[in-house]
């Protein structure tokens, strides 16, 4: 083994590589072998991202926090089942999507029996904000959810994963266990519907200008 090769292998073991995918793979590998620090780092790396992802789909901060915690617990328990560490993100998103689906299923079942009490997050961020911001925020989420309601389940998932969660086509295909061409078809249809959503688009244009 030459010196350069040795250095590379040591860097990989310590997670010192510059390649983010390689770094993530190393972190996952270390976490799988029982390194608690790597596991904590993984969780903190994706915590906000997964929280937001869940929030976009539930609209409730409290539910999003609970679900995020559950998702990371599930992640830590099932990390051994992940075959390819390079696909960690897609795998984590799949766990999250499944958990969100379970949540919606449970919620609809409970609402059918009218046993839930709707708790609205009046001030979700916990930060003081003015009335205009509040109205803007409310209007944005209203238009956002109006658009997502117009999309079919698959279109909605693909659209949100691509343009809100910023996953690549391949990652989405892995997350949803679909082919890339299927993902592209759903994305195309969703974009068509997005173009026909005047409320959200005018809001975005206003905000852009």
């Amino acid at each position, binding site marked *: 083994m030459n010196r350069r090769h040795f250095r590379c292998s040591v860097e990989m073991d310590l997670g010192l590589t510059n390649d983010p995918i390689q770094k993530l793979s190393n972190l996952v590998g270390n976490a799988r072998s029982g390194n608690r620090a790597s596991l*904590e780092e993984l969780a903190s790396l994706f915590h906000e991202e997964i929280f937001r992802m869940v929030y976009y789909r539930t609209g409730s901060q409290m539910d999003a926090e609970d679900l*995020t915690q559950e998702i990371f617990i599930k992640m830590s328990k099932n990390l051994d089942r992940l075959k390819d560490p390079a696909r960690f993100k897609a795998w984590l998103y799949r766990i999250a999507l499944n958990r969100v689906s379970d949540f919606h299923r449970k919620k609809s079942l409970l609402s059918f029996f009218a046993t839930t009490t709707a708790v609205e997050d009046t001030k979700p961020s916990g930060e003081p904000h003015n009335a205009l911001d509040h109205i803007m925020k409310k209007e944005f989420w209203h238009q956002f959810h109006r658009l997502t309601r117009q999309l079919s389940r698959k279109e909605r998932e693909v659209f949100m994963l691509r343009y809100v969660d910023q996953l690549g086509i391949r990652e989405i295909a892995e997350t949803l266990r679909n082919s890339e061409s299927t993902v592209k078809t759903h994305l195309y249809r969703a974009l068509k519907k997005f173009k026909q959503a005047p409320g959200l688009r005018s809001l975005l244009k206003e*905000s852009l200008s």
Partner: protein
Amino acid sequence: MKDKSMHLSEDQILLSLVDENDLSEVVKSHLLACTACQEKKTALMSELEHLRQMAKDLAPLPRQKPLPLLRESRHFSFRLRVLAAGFAVVLIIACLLSLVFFTDSSKQMTARLSTEMEAHLYLIDEILEESALPEYYLDIAVNSYSYFDDEFLEFVVPLEEQFDPV
């Protein structure tokens, strides 16, 4: 797109947003050269980017940090795996040994069974034969009580009324 002066249709713009590589070479080259089509595409892309940014900005931050994730189950499962592996090795050895013993005992059992079967066949033959018992046993068995006449029995077990009351 036969005419190069023709711009991309709305569908083609959308397709270019999904994956530019899926467009035909003619459409791709037109898109590269045409600023009007590029503007259309960029406008839509910036809308989508703004959608992502607004969603991110207007979503709250999680109030709590991720709770420390314990991998107890993993350590436990690792210990379990070691134990299971040990158990499996012991089981395999036991199976191999039992195989060896089983093959030996099966030979013995076969020999024993064949001997028993021979004996049974011999017995059946004897039963099927007429007067299979040896002569000595026949003397005991056939008419063995014939010489006990009534007088002898009366002597051995006298009737009650013949007793004289004292």
